[in-house]
Each structure stands twice: as structure tokens, then as C-alpha cells.
């Protein structure tokens, strides 16, 4: 029945597309509307998955710590807890401290949220099911992932508070210095796959998943991923127990909800990117591609959460030293080895 519905929608889309080719004006209208529909679908996907992810994190962290997690709000295992928390955050007073830089303070959460949203544009959910199959998908991805730095700096500076500034500076240093090994690991994958487009990278893995070809690259990417996601062991920017929530300490209510949701949306987006790059995206036998994609992404998300609740936080000088002195050489070695592999194998 689902296949029938999808077929119907595809036929409807085809009819509208043909009808719109009457004149350039209607073509433009069709393109813009279709773009808007895709945007709304992406936002819906992001929000729904973020809700599931926050619930999953609370339950998983509880089980790892021998406790139960949310149980009461939504009788079987507290699945309504997130809705309750969202309502609570929405109902809080929107406090803008008097001494903040108003423009930066107000725009920062939007920038952080948008940078997470931008990554969803190039994630292939299935064969051809991608918002926009850019030819330079991976370059776009590296650029979009860097947007978060701007949002963090705006939040930290605009909050006009020592804790925020410290958190933001450390966060920016960490994000920027871990982008280099991450992009180098991605370049190695691009060399193996022969294309910058994410859809192409997934299709190029139909024989062998990239993790088999690039184990060192995957480890480098994984370490850099934790820094990009602001998660333990690299969560210096918002270390709850150190900086009183760091760059988002002055935020309350809906603005804080933006930061919070953006963090989990980012988690899902970058996990999806990792699955696309190293684990074959939507490839897999028997099951429909979208189901494979969701299974793999959630397995990766659970791995990230598992590591987060196991390891202690790394000190900022240890963090930067690890990034520049261990990860960068490892990424370069990986690149060199990949070059040899591509040329002679």
C-alpha cells in the first residue's frame, strides 16, 4: 500500500512537471514550490528525528548507568517526555540580558540551527532521494559544517559573559582545528570513490564498503566527528560541569531549545554523512533502501552515544594537541596510502 501511494505521488509529480513546461514562468513556479516542499520535508524529518534522538540518548545513558531514564510521561518508557520538555522550554520567559550585543545574541541560535539544516541537503536517503544532488557535494558539506563555528562565536561574544566567551573561544578553536583532519579523511574517500557527489559516493560502494578500504581514515573521521558535534570527549565548548553550559549559558526558553535541538540535528546529520561515506549509505540486500539508511544511521548514532557516556572529557590543551599532533599526521598518512592504493591497485 505504501508503494502504491509513492507511485501515485510520483505520477502526480510527473504530470505537474509536464504541465509546468508550458512556459518558463510556470516552470519557475513549479521549481520554487517543489523546493519549498522539499525544504518542509527536510525540516519535518529533522525535527521528528531530533525528538527520537533526545529520547534515545536519555534512555541509553540511563541503561548504561544502571538506571531507568524517563518512565512516567507517556506510560511505556516515557516517550512523551520530550513533548513535555518542549512545552516547558516554550513556556519559559525569553530573557535577553541588558548588556548583551542584541543583534548577535538573537541571531546566533538561528545560525547554529540553520547550519545543521544545511547539511541535510546533500544526504542521500535512497537511490535518487536527495534534496539536491550537488556535483560538489563534499565541498559543500565541509563548508556547511564550518557554519557552526560562526554561530558559536556569535553566541559566545554576544552573550557578554566570561563563561560564554571562554566556552565559545575553546569551541571555535576545537571546531576549526578538527575540520582539517576531517576534510583530509573525506578527501581520501573522494579519491577512492572518484566523485565529489554524495549520491555517487554511495553508488561507488556497491561492491565494497569504504570502511574496509579506509580503516585509518574512518578512525580519523570518527575522532574529528566528536569534535564537530561538540560531544564528549570533546565537548569543551559547552562542558556542563565546567563552564556552566559555556556559550549557551545566557540563553533561556526557545533560544536554548534551538541550541539544544541543533546539537541533536547535527548529530543525526553528521552520522548520516559518516554512514554515506564509510558504510555504504542506503545499500543493502532485501530491505528497502530507506530502511537500511535509517538502520545504519541509528546504529552509528548509538555508537556515538555509547562513546559519549563512556569516556571522560579531554582538557583543552590535550584536545588541541591531539588534533594537530596525532590526527593530522594520521590523516596525511591515510591520504598518502590512499594515493598509492588508487594509483597501483
Amino acid at each position, binding site marked *: 500500500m505504501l508503494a502504491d501511494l509513492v507511485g501515485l505521488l510520483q505520477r502526480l509529480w510527473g504530470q505537474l512537471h509536464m504541465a509546468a513546461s508550458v512556459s518558463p514562468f510556470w516552470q519557475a513556479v513549479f521549481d520554487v514550490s517543489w523546493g519549498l516542499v522539499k525544504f518542509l520535508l527536510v525540516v519535518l524529518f529533522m525535527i521528528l528525528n531530533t525528538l527520537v534522538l533526545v529520547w534515545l540518548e536519555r534512555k*541509553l545513558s*540511563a*541503561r548504561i*548507568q*544502571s*538506571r531507568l531514564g524517563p518512565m512516567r510521561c507517556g506510560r511505556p518508557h516515557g516517550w512523551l517526555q520530550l513533548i513535555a520538555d518542549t512545552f516547558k522550554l516554550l513556556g519559559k520567559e525569553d530573557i535577553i540580558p541588558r548588556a548583551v550585543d542584541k543583534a548577535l545574541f538573537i541571531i546566533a541560535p538561528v545560525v547554529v540551527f540553520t547550519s545543521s539544516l544545511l547539511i541535510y541537503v546533500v544526504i542521500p536517503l535512497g537511490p535518487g532521494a536527495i534534496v539536491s544532488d550537488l556535483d560538489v557535494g563534499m565541498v559543500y558539506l565541509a563548508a556547511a559544517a564550518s557554519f557552526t563555528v560562526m554561530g558559536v562565536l556569535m553566541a559566545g561574544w554576544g552573550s557578554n559573559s566570561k563563561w560564554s566567551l571562554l566556552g565559545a573561544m575553546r569551541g571555535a578553536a576545537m571546531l576549526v582545528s578538527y575540520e582539517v583532519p576531517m576534510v583530509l579523511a573525506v578527501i581520501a574517500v573522494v579519491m577512492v570513490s572518484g566523485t565529489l557527489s554524495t549520491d555517487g559516493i554511495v553508488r561507488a560502494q556497491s561492491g565494497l564498503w569504504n570502511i574496509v578500504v579506509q580503516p585509518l581514515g574512518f*578512525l580519523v573521521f570518527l575522532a574529528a566527528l566528536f569534535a564537530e558535534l561538540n560531544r564528549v570527549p570533546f565537548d569543551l565548548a559547552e562542558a556542563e560541569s565546567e563552564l556552566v553550559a559555556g556559550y549557551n549559558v545566557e540563553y533561556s526558553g526557545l533560544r536554548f531549545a534551538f541550541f539544544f535541538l541543533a546539537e541533536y540535528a547535527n548529530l543525526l546529520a553528521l552520522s548520516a554523512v559518516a554512514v554515506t561515506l564509510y558504510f555504504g549509505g542506503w545499500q543493502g540486500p532485501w530491505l528497502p533502501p530507506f530502511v537500511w539508511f535509517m538502520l545504519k544511521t541509528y546504529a552509528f548514532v548509538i555508537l556515538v552515544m555509547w*562513546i559519549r557516556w*563512556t*569516556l571522560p572529557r579531554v582538557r583543552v590543551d590535550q584536545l588541541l594537541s591531539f588534533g594537530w599532533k596525532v590526527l593530522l599526521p594520521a590523516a596525511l598518512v591515510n591520504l598518502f596510502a590512499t594515493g598509492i592504493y588508487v594509483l597501483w591497485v
Partner: protein
Amino acid sequence: MRSLIAIVKGLWSVLTGLWVTFVNALRPPVTFQYPEKYYVPLEGFRGHPALVVDPSSGEPKCTACQVCAKACPLGIIEIEAGQREDKKRYPVEWRLDLGRCMVCNLCVEACPFGALVMSPDYELAEYRPEDLVWDLERLKLPREGFEASRLDGTVLTVTFAGGDRK
């Protein structure tokens, strides 16, 4: 070379940590979900003093001798004595201010007739402080959910007979 060994050792320690948390995640959680499940305290738990009812006569064993009232360090026990036709003394009124009781057990130890015992009931909250002053009827044991049973002929234990809570 040393740094390479350090990296490998670091990676191994991460994997060991992951194994530890994974194994712990599979163990049952230790949370006791209190209001849904009633926590039965251990034996000898002191919740509040209660008057033991003699099963043959249906009356409390208390003879209104005032020893417990004198033993109480807070002076919260008030007893009015009366005398029945067969010259036996009995308490007409027996009041205990539970809001000020510190469950020190001195009244129970002082009673020469074994008429006082500590009940393990701990859900005693009321909406008004006046409702915390319990009279003879409320202090009698057994009452709903609690029964007194003899251990070895001299010591009485109070057990929760309520079963599972709704």
C-alpha cells in the same frame, strides 16, 4: 615509535571502556520505582508508635499507667485513665502528636505491659497539622494493611499485610 605505542594503548583503553559500559547496560537497572511499588522496610523499622490490641478481648492492652507518658522526652503522649466495673484500668483517651514524635522508641521500651509497638508504616502525611494528632482509634493495631504477630512470645513484630499497591 613510543608515541605510536601510546596511540595504540590509548585506542585499546577506549575499547575496554566501551566493553565495560556495554556489559553494564545489559544488567538490570537498580532503580526502585517508589510510588508504583511499595517499599517494605526492614524488620525493626520505626515508623510510628501503635497500641497493641488483645485479640481475645478486642481492647488495647494499655492499662493507662502513664509510664510511657513520663518516659517520652518530648511529652507528646496524653492519656486519660478510667476504671471499668471489674476494677481494671483502661485508657479513656490516648493521644499522640505524630507531628512532633521523633520515633525514639523510649515509650515502647518503657511500657511494662508490652502494649506499645513500633509500626513500620511511613506514609503518614496529612494536609493539616491538626490531623497529625492521632487518637485511640487510629493508633490501634492491627489496622488496615498492618498486623502484629508474636515472634517468640515476648517480642511483637508488625508486618505489612497489604500486598501489592495499585
